[in-house]
C-alpha cells in the first residue's frame, strides 16, 4: 500500500477534527466499557485466590503464584501446542476452500442463488447442532465415515476419530472448516465484487487465460481482503473453544485441549476466578505476539 498523499488542499479545520473525533468516539467508548474494562479488571484478580462464590475469609493476594502454577502445568503447554497445530491446519484448509468457492460462485450464471445458498448453509447452522451432526458422522464403530471408508477400502481398521488422540484434533479441524468457511467465502465474495470488470477485459485482450487472470488480476486485487481474512481466521483459530467443549472436553489425554478451554475449565468448572484470569492474560499476551508478528509480516508483503 502506498503512503497517503500529503493533502495540501484541506485545511485542518475545527469542524473537521470535531467530526473525525465524533465518528471515532462511539466505538471507543463501547470497546472501553465492554471489552477493555472487564479485561483490565481481571489483571488485579489474577494475583489473588478469588473464587466464584463468596468466602467468609478475606481474598488473599498471592503474588505470581497463579502464573507460576500455570507455567509449570504441562497441560497449559500442551494446549498451546494444540492451538498452534490447529491454526496451521485450518488456515490453508478453510481460507483456501473459501477462496475457491467464492471464485467459482462469483461468475456462476446458472442457479446462482440456489448454489450460493447451499454453499452458505453450513455456516448458519448453530454450533451445537453442527457438533451433534458431526458426532454421528465420526461415530465409532458404526458412524457414516467409518462405514464409508470401509466400503472403499475393505481391509480398513475402523477408527474412533474423536476418541483417538492421534486423530481427534484433525477431526475437529474438518468439522470447524466445514462449519466456518462460509464466513471467509462471504467476505471473499464481497471482495470480488470490488474488482473492476475492466481489469478482466484488459487481461483478456492480453490473452490471459483463466489461471493467469486469477494470478494477475484476482489475487492481487484481493490483497486487502486476504489480509483481513488471514488475520481474523488466525485469531479465531487460536481462540478455538466451542467445538472442543461440546465434543471432547479437551480429551483424549489433553490432545484437543485449547487455551480458552483451559481457562474455561479453571474459571467455570473449577470456579477459580483468579487462576482463570491469570491464564486469560497469558493467553492474550501470547496471541497478541502472534498477531503482531503476522501483521508486520503482512505489512512487509504489502509494501
Amino acid at each position, binding site marked *: 500500500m502506498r503512503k497517503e498523499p500529503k493533502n495540501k488542499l484541506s485545511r485542518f479545520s475545527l469542524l473537521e477534527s470535531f467530526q473525525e473525533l465524533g465518528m471515532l468516539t462511539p466505538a471507543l467508548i463501547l470497546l472501553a466499557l465492554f471489552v477493555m474494562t472487564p479485561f483490565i479488571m481481571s489483571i488485579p484478580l489474577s494475583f489473588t485466590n478469588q*473464587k466464584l462464590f463468596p468466602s467468609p475469609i478475606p481474598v488473599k493476594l498471592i503474588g505470581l503464584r497463579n502464573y507460576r502454577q500455570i507455567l509449570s502445568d504441562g497441560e497449559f503447554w500442551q494446549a498451546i501446542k494444540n492451538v498452534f497445530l490447529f491454526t496451521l491446519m485450518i488456515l490453508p484448509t478453510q481460507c483456501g476452500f473459501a477462496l475457491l468457492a467464492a471464485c467459482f460462485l462469483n461468475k456462476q450464471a446458472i442457479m446462482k442463488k440456489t448454489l450460493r445458498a447451499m454453499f452458505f448453509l453450513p455456516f448458519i447452522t448453530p454450533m451445537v447442532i453442527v457438533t451433534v451432526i458431526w458426532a454421528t458422522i465420526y*461415530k465409532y464403530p458404526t458412524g457414516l465415515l467409518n462405514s464409508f471408508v470401509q466400503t472403499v477400502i475393505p481391509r480398513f481398521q475402523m477408527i474412533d476419530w474423536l*476418541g483417538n488422540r492421534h486423530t481427534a484434533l484433525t477431526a475437529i479441524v474438518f468439522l470447524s472448516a466445514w462449519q466456518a468457511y462460509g464466513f471467509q467465502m462471504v467476505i471473499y465474495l464481497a471482495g470480488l465484487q470490488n474488482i473492476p470488470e475492466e481489469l478482466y477485459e484488459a487481461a483478456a485482450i492480453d490473452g490471459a487465460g483463466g489461471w493467469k487472470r486469477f494470478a494477475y488480476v484476482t489475487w492481487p486485487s484481493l490483497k486487502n481482503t486476504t489480509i483481513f481474512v488471514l488475520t481474523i481466521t488466525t485469531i479465531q483459530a487460536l481462540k478455538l473453544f466451542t467445538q472442543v467443549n461440546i465434543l471432547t472436553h479437551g*480429551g483424549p489425554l489433553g490432545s484437543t485441549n485449547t487455551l480458552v478451554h483451559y481457562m474455561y475449565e479453571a474459571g467455570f468448572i*473449577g470456579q477459580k476466578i483468579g487462576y482463570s484470569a491469570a491464564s486469560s492474560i497469558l493467553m492474550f499476551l501470547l496471541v497478541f505476539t502472534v498477531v503482531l508478528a503476522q501483521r508486520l509480516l503482512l505489512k512487509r508483503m504489502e509494501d
Partner: protein
Amino acid sequence: MGKRILMALAMIIAVGSLVFAGSQGETQTDARKITFMYQGTDQFQASYKAAVERFTAATGIGVEMRYAPHDMYHEQLAAAIAGDDLADVVQLDGPFLSSLAWGGVLVPVEAYIDQNLLADMTASNVVQCTYPPDGKLYAMGHIDSTVLLYANKSYLEKIGARIPTSVEDAWTLEEFDAYLAALAKLPEVAYPLDIMRAYGVKSEWGTYGFYTAFISGGGGIMDRENWKADGMLNSPETIAVARKFQEWADKGWLVPASAGANMVFNEQRSAAMAWCGNWYWAGAYPSMGDDLIALPLPDFGNGVYTPNASWIFGITKDADKEAAGQFLSYMLQDQAFIDDMIKTGEFPGLKSWAARDPLYSTDMKIAAEQAAYAIARPPHPAYPTITSAFMKAFANILDGADVEDELNDAAAEIDEDILDNDGYPPFGK
C-alpha cells in the same frame, strides 16, 4: 442506498427501544412478596409457575420468579450475590450446598419448614441438604437421584448370571468382573458395559457417576475426617478401583464416548449393561420393555454405596425467611406439583411420593431402596476444585494414562487449593 440504510437502522433502533421501554413497565405490587430463583426444562418451568400461582392464591404471598438457565446457573447466582440482588429462595445443585453455606449465603432452614415435610424426607434427601460442620439442614429438596446398573435380561440369562433382587445381594466385584468377561464372549455383544462416556467424562457425570465405586472399594476422593485428598485419593484402595476401570477400558469392554449413550437399547442391542442415573429407564424402557432390568450397583468390597443429590432449594441470608419457608413447605407438599414430577419420571426424595410413584414402587423399586445407601459427594467448600480435578484424572485414566500419576496429581491439586484458602475453616479442624 446508504442514506436509506441509515434511515432503516434509525427506525429499527427506535422501535427496539420502544419495545424495550414497554417491557420495563410490568411490575407487580403485592403486599408481601418473595423472590425465587430457579432453573429447569420447559416442563419444570411450567410446573413451578403453576405451583407458585396456587401458593399465591392460597396465602396471598406473591412470588417473583427469576429463571436462570441450567448451564450458567452458578455464574448467575454468583453475580446476584455480588450485585446484592439475591433472591429469597434459590435453587442450587446439591454438591454446591457446602460452598454456599460456608460462604454465608444460605441459612439453616429447619425452623421455617413444616414438620410433616421434614419427616417425609428420605435418608438420601436429608444427606443432600445437610452441611457437615454443624449437621444442620441448609436446604430442602423433593427430588433426588441415584445411579444403577441396567441390564439386558436375556443376555444375563444366557451367561447364567445371578440376578440380585435387593441391594443386600448386590453383585460382588468378582461376580461383576466375571459376568463382564462372559458377556464379552457373546456374539451379539460388542461391549459388555456402557458407563455413559458419551456424556463427556468432564460433565460432572465423571464425578457423580463413579465416586461411590471408590468408596465401595475402601477408598474415595476425600478423607472425611481431616478433609485431605492426599492419602485417600491416592490410597492403594482407590488406585485398585481405578485400575479396574482402566482394565475394562483397555480390554475394550466399555462403550466409547463417540458411540453414543444408546448402545444398550438401540436396534442392535450391542451393549449388555449400562451404568447410569435413574433417568436412563425412561429412555431405554420403550424399546426394550421387560427385557430391561434395574440392578443395584456392584459391591467393590466395602459394601454398596450409591450417589445421590439433585437440585434443591435454599433460603438466603437477607430473605423474608418465614414467607420463604412457607413457600417451600407449600410447594413441596403440593400434590399437583408432585404429580408433575411423577409424570416426568423424577426420582422421589420424599417417602410419601416414593410410595405412590408407579415406577419407583415397581420396576425401579431397587432405585428407591438404594436411597438408604446414599453418600454425598465430598460436602466441602472446595467442591468445584475437587470435582474438576477428579473428573480430569478419571477421564485420563480411562484413556490409558498412568493411574498413580494421575491420582497423585489430582490429590495435590485439591490439597493445594484447600491450603490456599487456609483449610476453609471450620473444616479440617
